[in-house]
């Protein structure tokens, strides 16, 4: 029996397990999965919780429901990987030996890394929607908030779902309008990037949205610390932004055990070949989902397209054949823009988001890089697809690599 161990049973781990039990000869393989948390969160739903669009119950299901029966599932914290010895040590000292290892433990938030953030005011005037509990606490806060300066701050890139902070602000604009207090709320976006939109065409096509919604951008803001008593955040170049309510996207990092195992970079992401997702150092370790260092968005859609191509490549690798260097960083994301509308963006490692029609060139029905009601419905419909198609290991009827058909450059 060959042994495959999959670390992490979130978006990527669950998708790949469901694929592999169908493509591998299961009488010759033993697949073991490890995850510390029995609950599978639908993280894209966290964006909607603060505004009462979704509740907590809409954002999770038991992991066990989505793990194929042929797979042995262990609930445990991972202590470390010993890649030289081909084994994984769990926190309870269980040792798992493997022939092949798939790392899919994602990324998580580390608010402790920024002084002042995770102290007395955390959950009071400082919040986040990058965790289930955080999103629920923020919903309680926003329901009764009387207005003031709301600052959204991204501590450092990369973060999961890089458009989520902007979506949050656009939804906040809508939410406070609806509550009748928009005139009493200032919306500010303090980002380490040079602007809210950094790609030329997206910038040209979408900047009007921020003007229209009166969202002020504080660009190139690298937070050094929060001052919870004075209610301000301070950047390394000593700029200060005051807030009444701070919504933080804390530092995102890969899991600590990756660092302990010597597998990670400075943020505990595992360096891999960006076209095959094979570890740069170990020829029997693949990394899927947010846990790798590929220069793509940390998004479920990226994990999904990557896994579409991984399936066949893995079989080739097992037979000792060259892998196809195919994955192009394809991402396809719905972006909520408030008032029942949304955008859709489609891009990869080298091609920026462009206007056009998707998925059928010239027809759509989705519009790329343009606001529409249908894109908003697409985002809401995505939750059903996530649980019923993606997490069952089915493919979407879409090509995995990005297509230029139906797009135009202005």
């Amino acid at each position, binding site marked *: 029996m060959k042994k495959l161990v999959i670390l992490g049973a979130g978006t990527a781990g669950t998708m790949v397990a469901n694929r592999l039990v169908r493509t591998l000869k299961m009488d010759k393989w033993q697949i073991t999965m490890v995850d510390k948390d029995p609950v599978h969160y639908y993280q894209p739903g966290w964006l909607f919780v603060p505004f009462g669009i979704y509740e907590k119950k809409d954002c999770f299901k038991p992991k066990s429901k989505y793990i194929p029966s042929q797979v042995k599932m262990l609930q445990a914290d991972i202590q470390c990987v010993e890649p030289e010895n081909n084994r994984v040590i769990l926190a309870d000292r269980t040792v798992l030996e493997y022939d092949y290892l798939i790392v899919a433990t994602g990324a998580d938030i580390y608010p402790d890394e920024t002084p002042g953030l995770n102290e007395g005011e955390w959950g009071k005037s400082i919040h986040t929607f990058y965790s289930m509990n955080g999103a629920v606490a923020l919903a309680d806060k926003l329901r009764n908030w009387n207005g003031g300066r709301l600052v959204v701050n991204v501590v450092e890139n990369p973060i999961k779902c*890089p458009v989520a902070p902007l979506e949050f602000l656009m939804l906040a604009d809508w939410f406070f309008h609806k509550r009748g207090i928009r005139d009493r709320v200032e919306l500010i976006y303090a980002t380490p*990037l040079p602007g809210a*939109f*950094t*790609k030329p065409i997206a910038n040209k096509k979408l900047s009007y949205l921020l003007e229209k919604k009166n969202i002020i951008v504080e660009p190139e803001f*690298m937070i*050094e610390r929060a001052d919870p008593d004075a209610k301000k955040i301070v950047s390394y170049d000593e700029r200060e932004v005051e807030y009444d309510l701070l919504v933080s996207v804390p530092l995102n990092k890969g899991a600590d055990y990756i660092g302990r195992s010597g597998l990670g970079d400075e943020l505990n992401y595992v360096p891999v070949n*960006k076209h095959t997702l094979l570890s740069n150092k170990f020829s029997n370790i693949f990394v899927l989902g947010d846990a790798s260092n590929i*220069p793509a968005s940390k998004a479920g859609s990226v994990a999904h397209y990557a896994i579409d191509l991984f399936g066949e490549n893995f079989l080739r690798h097992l037979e000792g054949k060259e892998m196809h260097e195919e994955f192009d960083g394809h991402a396809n994301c719905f972006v909520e823009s408030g008032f029942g509308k949304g955008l859709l963006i489609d891009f990869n490692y080298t091609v920026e988001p462009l206007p056009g029609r998707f998925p059928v060139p010239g027809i759509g029905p989705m519009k790329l890089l343009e606001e529409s009601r249908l894109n908003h419905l697409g985002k809401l419909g995505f939750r059903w697809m996530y649980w019923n198609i993606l997490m069952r290991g089915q493919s979407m009827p879409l090509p995995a690599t990005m297509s230029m058909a139906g797009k135009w450059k202005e």
Partner: protein
Amino acid sequence: MATRTIAGKTVQVNDEGFMTNPAEWTKEIADELAKEEGIDCLTDAHWKVIEFSRVSAKDSGKAPTLRTITTGAGVSTKELFQLFPKGPAKKVARIAGLGKPEGCV
């Protein structure tokens, strides 16, 4: 795409004056771009950062983040802000002939 002559060499640049082909970069170009960014003289400490960033970009295909620079080149974030005041990530990228640090949109 536009071109521009910097330090006697014609190179490709984007709308915002970032070079688009790192292979066209020279040290003389770096000196000149640094002046445009308000840094009159590039010291050894600057060069350490610039050289690290070029190696890093060659591997990853994109300009490094601040954290990549601080860990890789062994400077603190505070120092980096002193060396390249007001937006070091962008300034380092421009002077090192790399594309602008970008998000996905």
